């Protein structure tokens, strides 16, 4: 008799578990429904065209992998850290792109970190006010800002005019159409993308931790090195990833401010398409995409997705 009631209870329990599972599944469907409009939009107007464009690499003008051939046939070498690396003109463009993206990322970090630190140290209301100055560039188009740099850096630009007028130079400096101009323009655009994630993470760092470290005998330099810096690393990772990946795809700024040698991949792609070499353009775009995804994967593998996109938990 006792065993019988026990069995009944067991069956009852299973029924209950099944009911809960059913409820949970219904809950999950609700979230799917919420996501649906955005997903449909992205697939129709983003996923499909991108896929259509990229697949051209494999059939335009004729099916096969010949679009990738120019990338792997070596024609020259470059010197890097004392090594002679065989490289062709196209790979060289990828190389320059990576270089520019790396320099822009590092300099943005060096410039942005102290700004974010300062912003996170003042009161929230003052920080909001100061944040406007960080964000103003966001509200101005990249094109306008790049032209503004041309006005500043050109042969008859403000800087050269001033130098000549002051008698410091007898002939104008070559500033425009140099790598330096590309760096200036891109860093200017990228700084907010570095500062914002840094600031978000730094704001989340409990100030009591810094006080505690001081209380335990750490002078300010040690408090920064041992406590603040490690806790701000998720912001560093997020900011660097964002800036680096965005930099890989830059087009207008290097086109307007760079010299003949400062060709980035997106400029090369645009050039191929304007020559109606859709297939080769698609192949270049595909390689750039794979490069970006690879770097993203490397970042998250080394640091963990949670550390890149999670905030500093205290």
């Amino acid at each position, binding site marked *: 008799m006792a065993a019988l009631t026990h069995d009944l209870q067991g069956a009852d329990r299973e029924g209950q578990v099944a009911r809960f599972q059913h409820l949970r599944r219904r809950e999950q469907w609700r979230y799917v429904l919420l996501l649906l409009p955005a997903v449909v939009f992205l697939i129709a107007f983003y996923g499909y065209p991108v896929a259509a464009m990229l697949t051209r690499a494999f059939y335009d003008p004729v099916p096969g992998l010949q679009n990738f051939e120019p990338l792997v046939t070596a024609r020259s070498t470059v010197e890097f850290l004392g090594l002679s690396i065989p490289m062709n003109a196209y790979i060289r463009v990828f190389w320059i792109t990576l270089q520019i993206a790396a320099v822009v990322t590092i300099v943005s970090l060096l410039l942005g970190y102290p700004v974010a630190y300062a912003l996170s140290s003042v009161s929230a209301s003052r920080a909001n006010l100061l944040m406007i100055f960080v964000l103003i560039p966001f509200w101005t188009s990249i094109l306008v800002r790049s032209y503004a740099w041309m006005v500043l850096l050109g042969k008859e630009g403000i800087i050269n005019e001033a130098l000549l007028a002051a008698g410091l130079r007898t002939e104008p400096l070559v500033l425009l159409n140099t790598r330096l101009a590309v760096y200036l323009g891109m860093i200017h655009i990228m700084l907010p993308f570095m500062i914002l994630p840094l600031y978000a993470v730094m704001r989340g760092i*409990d100030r009591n*931790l810094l*006080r505690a*470290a001081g209380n335990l*005998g*750490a002078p*300010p330099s040690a408090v920064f090195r041992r406590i603040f810096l490690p806790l701000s690393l998720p912001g560093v990772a997020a900011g660097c990833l964002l800036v680096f990946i965005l930099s890989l795809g830059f087009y207008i700024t290097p086109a307007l401010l760079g010299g003949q040698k400062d060709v980035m991949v997106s400029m090369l792609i645009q050039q191929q398409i304007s020559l109606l070499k859709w297939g080769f353009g698609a192949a270049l775009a595909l390689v750039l995409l794979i490069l970006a995804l690879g770097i993203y994967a490397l970042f998250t593998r080394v640091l963990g997705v949670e550390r890149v996109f999670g905030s500093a938990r205290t």
Partner: protein
Amino acid sequence: MTVAAQVRTPEKIGGLGARVLFDRIEKRYGPVIAVDEVSLDIAPGEFVTLLGPSGSGKTTSLMMLAGFEIPTAGEIYVDDDPIAAVPPYRRNIGMVFQNYALFPHMTVGENIAFPLQMRKIGRSEIARQTRDVLELVGLPGYEGRYPKQLSGGQQQRIAVARALVFNPRVLLMDEPLGALDKQLREHLQLEIKALHDKLGVTIIYVTHDQEEALVMSDRIAVMNNGRIEQCGGPTDLYDEPETRFVATFIGESNFIDGVLARADGAIGYVEAPGLGSLRAPLKPGIAAGSPVALTVRPEKIIAHDNGASSHLNTVDGTVADVVFVGEMRRYVVALPGGQRLVLKAQNRSGVQSFNRGDAIRVGWSVDDCRLV
């Protein structure tokens, strides 16, 4: 200003605690006075609690001692040395923060090693001291865990371990048990107390829980609006409250408002509307004719109807409410003149019980009431 009477001399293993002296300390934030002329003399090895409601300046006082806030006036001395010019990281004062402030990116072992590394102590010595202090707080072998892998009570113990490992002469604790449930809190109160007896370190403890303060402290400084209202041992504060605030904040109190009619030796006569003349020990500083309140604890009032002894204040009233709480009954008595008294009567044979609406005569010894 005298050094507190109770200098404890238990066996110390961490060396003696330091004497701490607040000399007319004031802290203003613009127009807000967070701490107002606080003077407090804490003997070496003493356990002193700052007790007060939210915003009374407890944390600010600790922060000034730890060096994170600078007083706008006054000076703090540790062992007779003024500390204003000493930066926080050279003060050698341990602190347990309210939210523990354990470094989330470091293991328990690394957290505890941190103050030792800052003092350039060798690796093997650090390992040994870490092991010892974890043993002391009852969490041996927890070196490898991260703070978020610990329960609230365990985090609290690690915070204590980290604050003690470098042998500070003063330990500050800002509501260290505030985030824990009642049972764990009571358990840790006793543990902290035992630790204090063992180490002999001077402890300044902050809480707004009066029971906690009474259980743990050698002396309690009751703070209100940035001032110390009264400072004394738990029994002193409970039995001899000097102000109405102290009488209300520590334990439960009745107040009968009246006017001091006259003084007769050590006894003052209070005229209360509808209650006639009540007697209380006289306190200096209250002039005859000035308004005064007579305060008496609920458990010191007896309900009886068999005559009045000469040493009792007695009044007649009506039972307005009764609550049965198991070990006692709690009566609210409405008095003629509109004032009310709360009294607690033990639940045992021989103690008469009353119902709502009954007439009741209550009395209390003249020695058991105070003027505030």
